[in-house]
């Protein structure tokens, strides 16, 4: 049976697409070296639209209104400028209420986009542009450590990694956050209160890497302007030992936290990338694995939720579980030496 894969890997090639939400201009070039803060593409996006009903405002039918409209699609219009005018000395006029651009005109109406904002897409990770996707973005390749998580708040940032979790089951509190941590990416355990998230925002930190988070904090975590990445799950779970070891041995390095929202269909996952110097390009990690003895796995649900271990043996046929359900299962030796029987659908390969 195929095993779901989550990457926690000390040295690997990392290839990531960085795409604009809507078509725009790609600024980066093929083979260009980029740093996380480099703007690689940009576009503009209208926050609002105004639909001006010339027919109604000028009290004419739509055919007449179309003849009276004086602007064209694509025109940039200043606030107060006339967009439709009647004939005669005291004729009615329709003026643009705000600065904007005409995006459609016809049927006696004019549609303007207003409040246009510029959207800049940053590289997010350091590396080399290996592909340009015209009007959309680029593909960047880098090499280093890769630690994928299970939840992210949609933000991305880079900074120096600082460890505030002396052990994998530490709890980060607001008292631990002081001004010396400003601009850092903080490796922490779980967070159990809003005050800690707000204190981190107050410094501000560049990002939080957490083992777990209480579900009740998710709304607040989503509102934070710095990236928050959760490695293991919800509640008060310790960080899995593989991720903790990898992260805690890379303190003081520059890391990127891309706390992308997990999308199981596109494959987007929140992840920490630690660029490392290399002599030769490492292999891209396997995306597909098969359950087999010796495979390093993490438990997705009880028993031993969040713990890692290795498969000792695959049970033949269906195994009756303590819950009463029957399913294909494996015997897993946990890192604490204990052995548990776990249904295969509750396991994922870490590597």
């Amino acid at each position, binding site marked *: 049976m195929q095993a779901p894969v989550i990457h926690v890997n000390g040295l690997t090639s990392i290839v990531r697409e960085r795409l604009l939400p809507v078509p725009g201009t790609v600024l980066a070039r093929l083979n260009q070296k980029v740093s996380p803060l480099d703007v690689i593409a940009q576009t503009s996006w209208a926050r609002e639209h105004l639909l001006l009903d010339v027919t109604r405002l000028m009290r004419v039918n739509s055919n007449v209104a179309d003849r009276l409209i004086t602007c064209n699609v694509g025109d940039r219009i200043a606030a107060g400028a006339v967009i439709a005018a009647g004939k005669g000395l005291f004729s009615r006029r329709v003026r643009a209420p705000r600065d904007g651009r005409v995006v459609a005109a016809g049927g006696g109406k004019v*549609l303007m986009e207003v409040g246009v904002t510029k959207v800049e897409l940053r590289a997010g990770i350091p590396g080399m542009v290996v592909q340009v996707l015209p009007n959309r973005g680029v593909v960047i390749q880098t090499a280093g450590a890769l630690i994928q998580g299970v939840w992210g708040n949609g933000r991305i940032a880079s900074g120096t990694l600082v460890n505030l979790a002396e052990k994998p089951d530490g709890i980060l509190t607001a008292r631990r956050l002081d001004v010396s941590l400003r601009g850092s990416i903080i490796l922490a355990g779980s967070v159990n209160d809003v005050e800690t998230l707000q204190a981190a925002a107050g410094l501000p930190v560049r990002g939080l890497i957490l083992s777990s988070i209480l579900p009740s904090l998710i709304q607040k975590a989503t509102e934070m302007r710095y990236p928050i990445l959760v490695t293991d799950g919800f509640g008060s779970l310790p960080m899995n030992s593989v991720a903790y070891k990898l992260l805690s041995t890379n303190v003081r390095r520059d890391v990127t936290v891309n706390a992308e929202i997990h*999308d199981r269909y596109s494959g987007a996952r929140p992840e920490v990338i630690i660029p490392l110097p290399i002599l030769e390009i490492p292999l891209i990690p396997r995306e597909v694995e098969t359950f087999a003895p010796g495979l390093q796995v993490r438990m997705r*649900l009880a028993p031993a939720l969040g713990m890692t271990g290795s498969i000792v043996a695959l049970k033949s046929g269906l195994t009756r579980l303590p819950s009463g359900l029957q399913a294909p299962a494996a015997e897993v030796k946990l890192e604490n030496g204990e052995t548990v029987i776990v249904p295969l659908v509750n396991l994922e390969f870490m590597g």
Partner: protein
Amino acid sequence: MPSSWVDGSSLLAIEVGAANTRAVLFDVIESEYRFVASGSAPTTAEAPFKDVGEGVRNAIRNLQKLIGNTLLDESRGLITPSQPNGSGVDALVVILSAGPVIKTVIVGLVNDVSLESARRLAESTYTRIVDTIGLNDLRKPDQQIDSLLHLRPDLVVIGGGTDGGASRSIRKVLERIGLACFLLPEEKRPDVLFAGNEKMEDEVKNLMGSPATSLHFSPNVRPSLETEDLDPAERELARMFINIRKRQFKGVDALDLWSNGHILPTAYATGRMVRFLAKVYGGEKGFLSVDIGSSAAIISAGFNRKTTLSVYPQFGLGENLSRMQNYTTLEDILRWSSLDISVSVLRDYLYQKSLYPASIPATKEDFAISQAVSRQALYLAMQFARRDFPGNVATINPTLTPLFESIVAGGGALSGASPPGPGLLLLLDSIQPVGVTTIMLDQNSLLPLLGAAVSQNNILPVQVYKSGAFLGVGTVISPVVAVSYGTVILRAKLNYENGAEAQVDLKYGSIETLPLSSGEVGKLSIQGLRGADIGFGPNRSLTIPVSGGVLGVVFDGRGRPLDLPSDSVRRRELIQKWNWALGGE
């Protein structure tokens, strides 16, 4: 292997579910169609595969191991028709529920008329309604446009206007939808279904045709104010659902080819089978199908002249679980739990399980939580679905579940429950049937597959349904009464075919059973007491034929609506007792 499997009439049915893909073989055995075997594999709609074909082939390979026959050729294509050496199959049907929920905007005129019909239509497949645009919408037109641009729906369902009626209002609304579609990037434009005033088709094409990704028409869902006809539009929407999935995943196109276009949304196939079964088995009362799985809760009810189909992804037990709190409280979920579980443990479970939809409860505690969650999800789905049942259905009390002749229940939450007692208790708690009902568990999740098979072979579904592939749980007697706990509310005597007798005095608040094996029938004499009504009037004395099942005749004396004790210790004791009464551990 029986030689009749290769008689040129075998049918392979593929179900691509949210978590698992199944390959199910039906064939003729001893002159009748039978469910032969089923192979399963994880669905591969998600990354890294993004190709449902991988999971389908894996499921077929697992089926091959079970039947000892080859179904896939060397180039991994399906062998069809079946060959003299026993390989291959003669026909294929496919049902599909995998994939993200389809973000849908419904558009219409009046809230209680066309918008209500558009809502019912949208809820016949795996949608989440993200916005509603109608005449009562107080937003300005440009705000409606901005909302559509912000939401980026996958689908817009438009109702509105009686056939040949006024078109001015709907034209205004369509203009806004058309403008929003035009402003969206081409690849983000939604599919649009127009199911309104049929006389407006040309006008709709003018207003919407070029900017929409794909514009579809169906007969008006509301041809007149008094008439609603959802069937043709549901059929069109089913086709659109498959087209959307074709764009989202690889492999759906190939399945469409393999099956010669016999590919349907799972929910639609369920509705089709329920419509058929309601005609055959519904009688005066209705026929109900409930299915609770990873992707959605599906309720389909067939009555004399009408079948309803409601799909609720928000009550699915997979990736949407973390959002269940938008519809219920955690305390309301925990009221169903047989174990003492804290709110925080439940909340963590919901979020963790939503990360891993395919995971299953392995411990007793997780099982108790998952059963409580399933109960509340199905209970809510049933409450939602009842809004759309016809007004003239047979009931004991219109505020309660209508009378149903039969209930078939399936889905991951029920097919995994073993033995059947806990599964039945889950149904009794969440659906709360009243009167006399036979209950079947679709442990192999065959119902939608049979609904899909109807288009290829209309004998197969009937024969398989009657073949014992569905687990007959028995006949459930659920009196409607409200008295104090321990009061005798019903006396019953069961006369067996062999002349034996068994009796029960049913006390309020208890569940009792009388044995009656599958295939057996008996005569049940009932005397209602204290106003107890099983659909024939309070305190009536009568004798009815009953059919058996693995749990025989089950008497649910807990009253309707089910009122659980507020004291949590007492409640958990009772839940445990009810579970034991039905053979649970």
